[in-house]
């Protein structure tokens, strides 16, 4: 098995060489994980009470997204994440309300209520490319984004993330192959949370690790403890530096565990051993970071409690605000198909609006015609 990069052990004791990181960055990583937990928890409740249709638990994997986000630059770099990456958005100050707008698919959702929840898309405050459900499609696209940067001689880089299951998709293989051939400035981050829905990662590959796959594509592969935010930060920083220096791509495997179900529709007790959950509970990424931050004097118990309270309030307000918004207007079914709407779509849009104007189903929650 390839070596596992670890800086903080399960108790938060430093066991590796800590990278030089500013205190603000460390605290922002911590906050992003706290925000993710609160957001995640709220989404689960909203789903259970029928207010949103779906969510994807992030519990247990947050250090992967938060640590990686901290290593990238929101101004220069592009992000092509996947759905289990909430903390990446929080780290770079995407507003919780905008994220909830997507969860509710309301009229202010950047995806205009067209996508399922957790399919975020942002250009501000950073380029978070629109998430697609078909797995692995973003990987070669991210390579293309990186090749465009290289083409223009920029010192920027791309990070793309995906799960362990997605390494079996053809997008993974063609993406890594192209990146190797063209020395694209990109970081591939595989969140090995050990499951693809119900399929254990053992049956996803016969390789000894995911990181080792890098060798076949002519790039370095790094295996890192995904519950150790500092280690993830270090691995991604090094890879991003390499990319910016024109040395090409890196594949990072962050070894972690999905503590919840695959999604709100999934019952993991059907296939996950309870012992495994108990084992990983002891490796909680938040507790580990918190212990270390307190030990280093970067954080106090009181400040940690304050952060928790601030975040709880922020998430509650954001959810309430998003929930109060109306759904997208009917015409949004037809816009953005093309830049200029062709005549057949214009006709269909008019027909749809007229049809619903004549029916009671057309009345939205506020009793107004929704267009």
């Amino acid at each position, binding site marked *: 098995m390839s070596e596992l990069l670890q800086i903080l052990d399960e108790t938060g004791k430093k066991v590796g060489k800590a990278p030089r990181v500013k205190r603000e960055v460390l605290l922002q990583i911590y906050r992003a994980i706290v925000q993710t937990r609160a957001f995640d928890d709220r989404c689960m409740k909203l789903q259970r009470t029928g207010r949103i249709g779906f969510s994807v638990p992030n519990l247990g994997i947050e250090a992967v997204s938060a640590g990686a986000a901290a290593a990238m630059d929101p101004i220069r770099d592009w992000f092509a994440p996947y759905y289990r990456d909430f903390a990446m958005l929080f780290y770079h100050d995407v507003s919780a309300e905008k994220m909830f707008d997507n969860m509710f698919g309301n009229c202010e959702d950047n995806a205009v209520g067209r996508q399922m929840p957790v399919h975020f898309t942002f250009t501000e405050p950073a380029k978070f490319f629109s998430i697609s459900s078909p797995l692995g499609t973003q990987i070669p696209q991210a390579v293309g984004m990186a090749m465009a940067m290289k083409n223009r001689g920029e010192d920027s880089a791309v990070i793309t993330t995906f799960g362990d299951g997605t390494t079996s998709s053809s997008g993974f293989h063609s993406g890594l192959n192209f990146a190797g051939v063209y020395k694209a400035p990109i970081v591939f981050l595989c969140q090995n949370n050990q499951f693809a*829905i119900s399929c254990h990662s053992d049956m996803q590959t016969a390789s000894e690790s995911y990181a080792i796959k890098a060798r076949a594509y002519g790039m370095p592969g790094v295996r890192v403890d995904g519950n150790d935010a500092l280690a993830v930060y270090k691995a991604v920083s090094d890879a991003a530096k390499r990319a910016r220096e024109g040395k090409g791509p890196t594949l990072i495997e962050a070894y972690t565990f999905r503590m919840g179900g695959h999604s709100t529709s999934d019952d993991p007790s059907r296939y996950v051993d309870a012992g495994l959950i108990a084992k990983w509970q002891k490796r909680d990424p938040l507790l580990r970071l918190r212990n270390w931050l307190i030990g280093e004097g970067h954080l106090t118990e009181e400040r940690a409690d304050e952060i928790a309270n601030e975040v709880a309030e922020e998430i509650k307000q954001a959810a309430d605000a998003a929930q109060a918004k109306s759904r997208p207007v009917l015409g949004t079914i037809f816009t953005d198909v093309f830049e200029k709407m062709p005549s057949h779509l214009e006709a269909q849009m008019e027909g749809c609006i007229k049809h619903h104007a004549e029916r009671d189903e057309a009345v939205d929650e506020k009793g107004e015609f929704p267009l």
Partner: protein
Amino acid sequence: MKEDDSVLVMGEDVGPKGGVFLATEKLTAEFGEERCFDTPLSEDGIVGVGVGMAMNGMKPVCEIQFQDFIFPAFDQIVSEAAKIRYRSGGQYTVPMVIRTPYGGGIKGGLYHSQSGEAYFAHTPGLKVVIPSTPYDAKGLLIASINDPDPVLFMEPKALYRAFREDVPDGVYEVELSKTRNVTEGGDVAVFCYGAMVPVCADAAKRIKDSRNKDVRVVDLRTLMPLDEESVLQAARDCGRVVIVHEAPRFCGYGAELSALIAERAIESIEAPIKRVAGFDTPFPNTLENYYMPDARRVLDAIEEVLDF
């Protein structure tokens, strides 16, 4: 699977979990991991491997978790499974089934809702089957497994939990390429399949109640090869035709039906052939119910052809 050892099931999460819609529940427990197994997350792998197994004596039933995720396997289906008999002069054949849930109705947004039957019905060498009742689902699936050619078996996911129906124990087949009349009638022929069948039956009932008109709702059941004679007969008997599908209208399956009727039964047709379809846009999420054809839209079309 009890009757024929060469039948096996493969796909993402079809094993112990029993599939995301539980369609393969308990199969691994009953038949073992050799007969029902999880695969790596690769649709082209699933279908490509299925093609090879089928050529070499097995009858694989491959599951693609959502029809929206079938496209990595498009090459294996369209260029390979569908053409191997033809290009080998019948030396090699591909008796496989690809099962996949399709269509809207579960708030699945762009990528858990699509109806891609037209791409596949357009592919010579591939059969396309869509059941709309539990009885048909079992009988058509067994007929598809026993069929000597590759079959894409599309399951309307909106109907998985919609209603219950007793099905006979044991093996029975529902013949492929035979339509089923859901309601009898001679005033308007309504052609549909999958999740649109109950929607059309509802519209037929409403028009019976409101105007005492008898609609013949025809469930196509097999889109390729189509039961052309039954379609033409219904069109001739009724003289008025409505075609309903969830998929976008443009180049949708309704275009083929409409052309067929226009070419071969125009002398009996008394009103323009009407199509009720999904809009020519990707599938929205929040506004799903405005996108999907409903009984109201079907009813409007029936009234239009009646009043022409």
